[in-house]
């Protein structure tokens, strides 16, 4: 498989860098399947989120904010992450990413395996983070409806190429997008 081009973030070259280097550059990646430490507790997962910025001090500063968004995490901080429900796990993965105060948050298939109400809730929180904190969010999503509602810009990828791209409100009206992804 050949590849070309480059990846740059905030002026820095990231082509070929490992995921840990990307994390240290201020990118938080919530992978498909959440990537939680199932055997560790909720609190320990959050602590790991703070690792990249110096765990001890960061977690003390950021925990209150996280608990504001997700109050249940404070009550159940010692629960093993693997025993949480699907929606709770996604929220924990999100919270863990936020603890590092990233400049860019990447969410890979956040709606996978979740009930519609849960998905709505998660995207509501993401929109709030984007609006209030100015956090840049990049979402890879199969659920076009929810994604187009939340995002300001969207791109449709086909076989590794950008097929359509632009303002999401306009994309909603695009015929190809409507037929293939929105079902009408």
């Amino acid at each position, binding site marked *: 498989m050949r590849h070309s081009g480059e990846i740059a973030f905030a002026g820095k070259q990231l082509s070929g860098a490992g995921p840990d280097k990307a994390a240290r550059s201020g990118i938080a990646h919530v992978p498909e399947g959440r990537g939680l*430490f199932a055997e560790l507790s909720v609190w320990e997962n959050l602590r790991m989120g703070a690792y*990249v910025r110096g765990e001890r001090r960061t977690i003390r500063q950021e925990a209150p904010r996280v608990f504001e968004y997700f109050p249940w995490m404070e009550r159940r901080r010692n629960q093993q992450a693997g025993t949480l429900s699907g929606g709770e796990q996604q929220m924990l993965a999100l919270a863990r990413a936020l603890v590092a105060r990233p400049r860019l948050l990447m969410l890979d298939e956040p709606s996978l395996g979740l009930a519609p109400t849960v998905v709505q809730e998660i995207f509501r929180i993401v929109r709030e983070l984007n609006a209030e904190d100015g956090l840049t969010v990049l979402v890879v999503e199969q659920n076009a409806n929810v994604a187009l509602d939340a995002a300001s810009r969207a791109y449709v990828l086909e076989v590794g190429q950008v097929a359509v791209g632009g303002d999401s409100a306009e994309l909603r009206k695009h015929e190809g997008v409507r037929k293939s992804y929105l079902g009408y």
Partner: protein
Amino acid sequence: MPLAFIWSDFAQQVTSGLAAGAIYASLALALVLIYQTTNVVNFAQGEMATFTTFIAWMFMDHGMPYWPAFVLTLLIAFAGGVGVERVLIRPIEHRPEIVIVIMTIGLLIALNGLTGWIWGPEVKAFDSPFPNRSVIVGNVAISVRDIGTFCVCLGVVVLLWLFFRFTTLGLAMRAVAFNPDASRLMGVRVGWMLALGWGFAAVLGAIAGMMAAPTVFLDPDMMIVVLIYAFAAAVLGGIDSPIGAVVGGLLLGVVINLLGAYVNFVGNELRLPTALAVLLLVLVIRPTGLFGRRVVRRV
């Protein structure tokens, strides 16, 4: 009268079994530490321990007092463990496990030969920091050396536990053991965490070696049998469970001592085969070991 006599004899066997078991537990924990992070069984763990014990002997032979030599050896062992991981294991870490295992077997062969080459095959005496007396508790005579060995080994195990439980680095190492890919996303330099794991394992091995040497005497093959007992303990406890390694080690130490003392058939020579038979029996009944989570078989 006979009952009291038997009881004190039994208690003595148990306490010396616990001391031996503490040594097995240390080495078993080293094996599990490496297995948990690198998914590799380090066959050279015993020889690394022997090599570092010889280094300690060399220091003391040149006049260094015991505890400074002890600490210095631990530092060297740590550096050695990190070095082995970075230099030997890292370049092949993506290859199948059997390949890495064979690499450790190569290290085993080479280190065993090197130890003999540098220091010669003759058996050497190794000092113990604990006096060779016994303390009378009740009417049981317990060797001070056994108490000391038990305390040192388990003390280090407790220290390690505290480290993993309460420090950032310890948390990161645990995270790497559970999910290296997610750890990378958190900014953890996974490679160095693995190296640290090998460093700690080497330290545990060095302690096991230095505690064993006064009793079994120091020669290049000293740790081969201990390694097997440590393996057995690790597998018995569950190859991916640190608690299992410690419990397994202590249990094995006690059981073997009791079998050796009370079962005539076993006597002194058949201890190892008997331990093996017991281990195989446990594995057939419960393949994941006492505390193990994953099935050892990778499907």
